[in-house]
């Protein structure tokens, strides 16, 4: 008997913890379908899609989503391409000072981006490139590159060299080899880097908050903040619908690719 209680006590604790994690989120779901948008969890008296319709039909919100997508998608694509290029020589050649490059990449990875935002703003201000989606995206590319190169190199290290050698003999160049031989093999790794990077910038608040100021350029993160921070009378139901729509893409990406993602975590945890 004692053993049974002991065996199942962990199940119970796990389930309680899981419920505690779902609990705050549940409110967001309920409130988004409730016209009255209460602050507490309450099953709506009348389930309505009005909040969603309101949010989706507002052109400013649509613009914010589009901006988020443009920034995150172009950033993640650039990061993946640049990281594959950069990690190829780091993985394949024995170059002088290679470990120095690798460790400085790892070192940059550790710097809190928050701390450099003030000077970044100053540099951008001086160069007159504030309030530009392009420069904001390039900045996000730069800050995501160190860990992406690091991860990508680790994935590339696992590709056997013999695969490439066959391609060399057939007369393929380096770029062709990367595209036709290496890329298909490291595709899961590429996905990890892409999703990590995409969701990182999709959810990022501080960078666009500092670097972008026009209403038509801000992404959803900043737009939600303004929605909920600046106005006195907040329609919580609508804000909940907006938040949920904004969370959905990365939540789906994450859960669809959970298997890949745990690889990414194993890498950053240095357990190989």
């Amino acid at each position, binding site marked *: 008997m004692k053993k049974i209680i002991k065996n199942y006590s962990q199940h119970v604790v796990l389930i309680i913890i899981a419920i505690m994690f779902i609990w705050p989120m549940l409110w967001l779901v309920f409130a988004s379908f409730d016209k009255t948008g209460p602050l507490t969890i309450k099953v709506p008296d009348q389930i309505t899609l009005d909040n969603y319709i309101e949010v989706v039909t507002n052109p400013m919100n649509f613009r914010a989503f589009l901006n988020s997508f443009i920034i995150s998608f172009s950033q993640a694509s650039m990061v993946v391409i640049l990281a594959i290029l950069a990690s190829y020589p780091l993985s394949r050649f024995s170059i002088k000072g290679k470990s120095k490059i690798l460790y400085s990449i790892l070192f940059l990875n550790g710097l809190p981006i928050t701390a450099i935002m003030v000077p970044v703003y100053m540099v951008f201000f001086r160069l007159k490139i504030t309030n530009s989606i392009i420069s904001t995206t390039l900045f996000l590319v730069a800050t995501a*590159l160190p860990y992406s190169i690091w991860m990508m190199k680790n994935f590339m290290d696992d590709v056997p060299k013999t695969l490439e050698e066959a391609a060399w003999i057939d007369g393929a160049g380096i770029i062709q080899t990367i595209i036709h031989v290496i890329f298909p093999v490291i595709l899961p790794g590429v996905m990890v880097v892409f999703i990590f990077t995409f969701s990182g910038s999709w959810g990022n608040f501080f960078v666009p908050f500092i670097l972008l100021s026009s209403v038509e350029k801000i992404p959803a993160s900043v737009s939600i903040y303004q929605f909920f921070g600046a106005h006195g009378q907040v329609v919580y139901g609508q804000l909940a619908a907006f938040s949920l729509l904004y969370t959905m893409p990365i939540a789906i990406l994450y859960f669809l690719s959970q298997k890949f993602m745990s690889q990414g975590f194993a890498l950053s945890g240095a357990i190989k």
Partner: protein
Amino acid sequence: MIEKRKIKTTILFLLPSLLLIFVFFALPVFVTIFYSFTNKTLVGVKAINWDFVGIENYKFMFADKRFFISLKNTIVFLFFSALVGQQVLGFALAYMMQKKNALLRRFVGTSVLLGWVTPEVVVSFIFFAFLNTEGSLNSFLGVFNIKPIAWLFDHAMLAIIFANIWRGTAFSMLIFQSALGNVSESVKESARIDGANTRQVLFRIIIPLISGSIVTNTILITLQTIGLFGLIYALTGGGPGYDTTTVPIYMYNKAFSAYQLGYGTAMAIILVLFGMLMSVFYMRSFKRND
């Protein structure tokens, strides 16, 4: 391949990345160090005609009571939300989820991951509602006849700690899951045969075996937490008063609301230095694992 071609390829392939990293990442760090010794402001005369003021900003910082409050808040926040909250809870979850059936693992794992996939600003909004006087937590406590508590005003630090635990636990959980997965069954089994009980196996065998991951995880969550801005800024704005003003919030306020860029960057330097220190430890733990 010929050596010359290798070098050419290396330079060509690394150049775009290094250039971007240099211009947008490394350069601002140097600029930070530089401006922290000036009295530059965002607007006004001192924006153009700034002077070198030596270590004035740093002196001022060490005399600034509010800076110390923000530093203390950062440390309290880091300790309770990340080092204790996320890490211990994350480990406990990973440990308990071992050898449970797939359905339970999936249910628990997915629930905890909800916080991790939710963008910062949305986390703030969720906790704004959850901890509101009319929010879900108070409604629940009301069942036990506990009067509504103004969490966001009377216990603001606790509020941001809760929010950060909710958001960040999944990260530690995933790191520890993969670490625990690598602890071989036979080691645990032989310890058990030698008469060790569950607790002894945990503390004497498992924890020492995954100490590398514990160190790495500690460093990574520290780095994530000291730089946290959006979550706190959107939830409490650093208030009430200075109750939840951490260093990034104070830095932001000084640089962009009070326009004291020089002073703001001096604070940024302290954050960067702290991050650098952690980065060095991070690299070391990698080197040891290699």
